[in-house]
């Protein structure tokens, strides 16, 4: 039989935990309000940049040679076949845990994206988004038969897809396990061709453990993003892209849709593929006047756009993190409340049983004396 003191102690510890989770809930709530505010005031700017971008890129069709960031898909594929550039991924997660499945959702999405092998169809929410090129690029590349000499990168992809095909033949595994199998078989190949920039301590530890090459990580900024960090990341990315070390930059973050819905999302930052803006071309036919000229403007505008996107993603991620933490903590508080109720009931039962027992003993003793 459980002893009373033991139960009392448990009730106390549950209550203490409840106090902590409740406090964390409240802290997250107030920070969340600030984060949402920051996000909401950033949204129009990002939306307008995107709009302009779309119009400008429509104009750039057929003139891709004018700027190094802008390419047609055909050019991109040709370049990827001869060059051996790396893929860069920027992963934005949180510094701290206790936010439910927030971080693990990001990581799951990041792994799907990094180890993408062409088998995963349409898990991403933004299939209608014109700016998610990574999969399209990959699919386009995959369709090409390897020429005589293969580049390391292509080898990486070929061997990855090859081993996945093998794995599928072995047993009808799902695409999720395919990804894992591919990773185990080709770890070195994979890791070699990939660089990561992580925001948030959790992201850094997660990917470091798995042996990825992290070129830069940012800690302590996940809850309150600042533009200067986004700018810094953008500068690194542009620098490496310019020098040809990397050929594809993808940003993975959590999109904040509402307080109860935060979805991992990924967008391609570089290169900008004009084929994907084909849709918009019908609406705008007139030429732009660029002052002073298109290269100067794009040299200013594109880095700005990239930094803006990274900053926007950081804000989304911050709001998502805090709202996830809010949900997780208020759930924990509710659960603790319920647990305390149950323990109290149990405590009273045990106490009552003890009293009944004692009375029985007294009555038994009295009877025996007669």
């Amino acid at each position, binding site marked *: 039989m459980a002893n009373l003191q033991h139960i009392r102690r448990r009730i106390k510890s549950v209550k203490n935990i409840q106090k902590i989770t409740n406090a964390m809930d409240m802290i997250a709530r107030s920070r969340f309000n600030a984060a949402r505010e920051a996000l909401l005031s950033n949204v129009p*700017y990002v939306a*307008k940049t995107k709009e*302009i971008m779309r119009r400008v890129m429509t104009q750039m069709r057929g003139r891709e040679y004018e700027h190094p960031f802008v390419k047609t898909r055909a050019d991109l594929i040709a370049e990827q076949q001869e060059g051996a550039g790396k893929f860069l991924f920027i992963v934005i997660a949180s510094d701290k845990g206790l936010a439910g499945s927030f971080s693990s959702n990001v990581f799951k999405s990041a792994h799907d994206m990094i180890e993408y092998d062409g088998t995963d169809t349409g898990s991403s929410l933004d299939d209608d988004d014109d700016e998610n090129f990574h999969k399209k690029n990959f699919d386009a590349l995959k369709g090409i038969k390897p020429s005589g000499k293969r580049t390391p990168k292509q080898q990486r992809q070929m061997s990855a897809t090859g081993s996945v095909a093998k794995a599928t033949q072995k047993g009808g595994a799902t695409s999720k396990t395919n990804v894992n199998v591919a990773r185990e078989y080709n770890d070195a190949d994979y890791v070699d061709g990939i660089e990561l920039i992580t925001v948030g301590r959790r992201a850094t530890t997660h990917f470091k453990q798995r042996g990825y090459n992290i070129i830069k990580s940012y800690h302590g900024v996940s809850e309150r993003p600042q533009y200067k960090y986004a700018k810094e990341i953008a500068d690194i990315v542009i620098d490496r892209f310019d020098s040809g070390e990397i050929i594809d930059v993808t940003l993975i973050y959590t999109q904040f849709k509402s307080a109860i819905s935060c979805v991992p999302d990924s967008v391609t930052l570089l290169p900008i593929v004009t084929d994907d803006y084909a849709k918009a071309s019908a609406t705008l036919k007139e030429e732009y*006047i660029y002052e002073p000229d298109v290269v100067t*403007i794009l040299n200013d505008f594109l880095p700005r756009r990239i930094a803006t996107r990274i900053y926007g993603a950081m804000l989304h991620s911050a709001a998502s993190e805090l709202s996830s933490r809010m949900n997780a903590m208020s759930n924990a508080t509710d659960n603790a409340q319920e647990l305390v109720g149950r323990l109290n009931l149990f405590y009273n039962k045990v106490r009552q049983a003890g009293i009944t027992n004692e009375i029985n003993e007294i009555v038994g003793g009295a009877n025996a004396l007669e």
Partner: protein
Amino acid sequence: MATILLEIATPDKGEIYKNDINMLITRSICGELGILPKHANLLTALLPNVMRIKENGGEVQIFVSGGFMEVTPEKITILADAAEKPDDIDVERAKSAFQRASERLAKKNDDIDIDRAEAALARAKARLLVKGVPIG
């Protein structure tokens, strides 16, 4: 009178201005520009300056600290790094920024970023200009 929609957005304060206007006067990296309704498509970068906006017979001034301007026949979009209405400008801050920037430029050390200091100086100047503060 014909009007054109003007929208000014900044990264941290959202959309700070949205209105149908008659004319916008601003300064791009190529010089002073006046934009009237039905202007041709244009994309340019802005310098720190005080924009003059003519609307409903009156005139409004807004300070922008640089950014981009896109013009289509129906709409002007300004993506400003920062933008303030004259009432919101912090004169003391602008003054000290002006001081700092001019000191930095005067020293001409190698370890300072001249471009940045010059940009900061231009911003401070434009801010002080709106408020009519004499620049020493």
